[in-house]
């Protein structure tokens, strides 16, 4: 919003400078006039585009974690898979729920509630695994339920408040006007600390 307003002001100021022109009308050659008109036309055209078409959107899947609502960008999502059954592994940090079998492939599932200090909720029929990936990494995120998919204008995202119960800025990209916390999938996938590599107990 701020950005759009700023640009509008910008154009107005351009318009002002053109108002001063009539005084010098007589000395304008047709070429100069032409170029002024062209510039003005361009400026107007740009304003229109800016206001409507050029906003950047991202597609997100919106899901629930305990009492909160989160979103994660669709382009990182391989698929959403129902959590039918999972196998817990002994001796690994609690933020890893366990492993699941996705058509013969083993995928690990991370419980983000552990990162965000959210209360536990029993697993049920609504639970889904959102499998996110990039070239090097792939794992599932446990979701309590899936709400919907929607587009969100990136510029409308606000900086998430530094919360007292441990939600840091590290994995968060921002928060929407209607309180959907958008996760930064890119950073989550690239975080070396999320990889379990135990050389000894």
């Amino acid at each position: 919003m701020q950005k759009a307003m700023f640009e509008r002001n910008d154009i107005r100021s351009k318009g002002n400078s053109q108002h001063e022109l009539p005084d010098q009308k007589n000395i304008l050659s047709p070429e100069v006039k032409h170029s002024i008109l062209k510039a003005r036309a361009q400026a107007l055209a740009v304003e229109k585009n800016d206001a409507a078409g050029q906003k950047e959107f991202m597609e997100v899947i919106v899901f629930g974690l305990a009492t909160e609502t989160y979103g994660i960008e669709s382009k990182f999502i391989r698929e959403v898979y129902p959590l039918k059954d999972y196998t817990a592994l002994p001796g690994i940090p609690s933020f890893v729920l366990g492993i699941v079998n996705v058509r013969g492939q083993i995928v690990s599932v991370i419980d983000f509630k552990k990162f965000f200090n959210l209360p536990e909720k029993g697993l049920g029929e609504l639970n889904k695994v959102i499998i996110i990936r990039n070239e090097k990494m792939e794992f599932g995120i446990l979701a309590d339920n899936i709400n919907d998919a929607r587009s969100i204008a990136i510029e409308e995202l606000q900086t998430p408040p530094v919360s007292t119960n441990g939600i840091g800025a590290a994995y968060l990209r921002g928060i929407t006007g209607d309180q959907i916390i958008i996760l930064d999938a890119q950073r989550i996938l690239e975080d070396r600390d999320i990889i379990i590599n135990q050389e000894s107990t």
Partner: protein
Amino acid sequence: MDKKDEEFFKRLQATFRVEAEEHIRELTSGLIELEKAPKFEKASELIEAIFREAHSLKGAARSVNMKEIESICQVLENIFGKIKNEHISLSAEQFDLIYKAVDSISKMVSDGGTIAPKDNRGLINQLQSIIQTHAQRKIVDEQTESLKNPLKEATTGASFENEIPVATERFIGEKPIQAGTVRIPISKLDPLFLQAEQMIQYKIAAIQRSSEMKDINGLIGLWKTEQKKWDSPRYSESITGLKKINDWNNERLKELETHIIAVTHALETDQRSLGRMIDDHLESMKSVLMLPVSTITEGFPKFVRDLARSQGKEAELVVQGKEIEVDKRILEELKDPLIHLIRNCIDHGIKKPGERECLNKLPQGKITMSFNATESRHLEIRISDDGVGIEPENVRKAAIKTGILDKGSLEKLNPNETLMLVFQSGFSTSQMITDISGRGLGLAIVKEKVEKLGGSVSVESSPGVGTTFHLLLPLTLATFRGILTRIGNHWVVIPTINVERAVRVNQKEIKTVESRETILIDGKILKTVRLGNVLGITTGGNGTPTKKNHSTKHDTFIQLLILVYADKRIAFIVDEIIEECQILVKELGKQLTRVWNISGATVLGSGKVVPVINVSDLMKSATQTDLSIKESKEKEIETVMKSKILVIDDSITSRTLIKNILESAGYLIETAVDGVDAFTKTLIGGFDLIVSDIDMPRMNGFELTAKIRKDKKLCDLPIVLVTALESREDRERGIDVGANAYIVKSSFDQSNLLEVIKKLL
């Protein structure tokens, strides 16, 4: 057209490279054999073979216009032609020269390039001198002429063949086309094999479906019996309408049963043939990828010879069981470990000829590498040398020097365990690090690689007599069998290769010796541990012997699995052994690169995912558990429990990890995201200790430490800085601002952190 020709030539060169490598291999192994000075008959056979290889290689080189190779081969051919005709024997120096020639051919083949004409010339001249030294008798003028000018000779081609008519007649036209073989790039076979392997999954699933059908049949049987009751006269007389419905039900039931029985039979037959077909298919696929051991050992004898000579030693390698076929993927991974072991034998075991003679040994050392396929379809490899052996005392000294173990722990080890220390990373008895070995990594890498393949390694040595390394590996990677085991609600698979046996014993047979549980099996005392405890699985007490203890304490039988790894044997208590089965081990996913105690997971016929145990890790954990249990019981519990720690890190993961580590050690934890947040919390909090990251927004760890130290109330609070910064300046700065400890993340492991915290509290 030009482009086409070019492409064709490129393909031709690639073909040449493959062929040439084969000739070079044959040439080399022929030379090695010949150098061992075999009996006359064998020798002439070898000379003939070498001559033939040189000749074929020459022809092949000519077809791709590699003149340098051609000319060297020409001379080699001459030399061996002459040796053949005049029964000359070669000296070691002359062998060296010939090896050098073969090496340079090999280099030219692999580079596809050339060597400087001058070098080539020099090499050829040197080679020629071999025959000239032997030319005591008359040499045909014509032949001398051709030898002086081999390049010209070679390019004119066929003229040479007139000179040794016997050989050419026999070998021209005898191109190495063997009947019934076809060359397929391995890259094409690999996916095929993987697909075949994936089919196991469906074979297992078919078995499951088949048994599910049987269950359905059972249900129908039950229904039928129930239904029959309604046929009795006392019901049918009373309500005729109901009788009609019942008759109709009976009809449908019969129909349904007939169908289901037919389907069940069909399914069983299908499942059996599917299973058989998949097994056969996999077997054939496996055999396609099974290569003889010789594919990796070809170069070894020469390697041993060269390496020994470069150290002024003499050594010979004897390879036994070269023909044994092993999965190519295992062979590929095995080459490096074997080279490491050979190096180790030459560097440490075999001494210089003079020293050897003092010990009443032959001047030439002997290394034996024997391959053997065991009945249980395992590959057994023994690498022995007749060198000086390993002196346990030296191992002990080196272990102390390199800081692997302290004196106290060393004394507890038996001789065998002491010897096993040589496989520890960083262990080396060498006084000096050489480029061959001494860096203390070689044997550790061997162990790691072998374990990765699901094998084990051990060593035996008698000082003064020699050393034997013993490797046990699966012959193929896919035939993986495991024992499906239950502990509480958890199922795990234990690789059959590591299971010596499964026994049921009476609870009272388990004795406690020095607060450790043991059992006497076959006259040997075995350490006994609960698998659940080692893995950290809480079984909750139901179904486990604890509950039964009250009622029938003396008649409770427990299930034991005796696992073997390298030289260790431990009995593990499990709740139930479900079955032994064929399994396909899969990786745990990209996020779980390495999980302690677990090597992968497998999918059962029911779709259930079950972790597969890494027995090497498990044995280590089992040895550690009793120590840690003891320690934690004796000291920590009371003193530690109530300490309150503030963990500060801007990364969620690091924060969560540290929090988990500390919580599981019994501390109360609160977290903060940066220095500002932390300071506020510290003011309110009543913490006993602070663990903080350094690099953070708003207020970093140094600033926070300084601020706390300036505060009157907080100035005594112990502060541990945990950081990725590794510079000395930072460490000093950390001390300057008043931190009590400074742990670098790269050297960061749980015990380190916990130890530091314990000290400070």
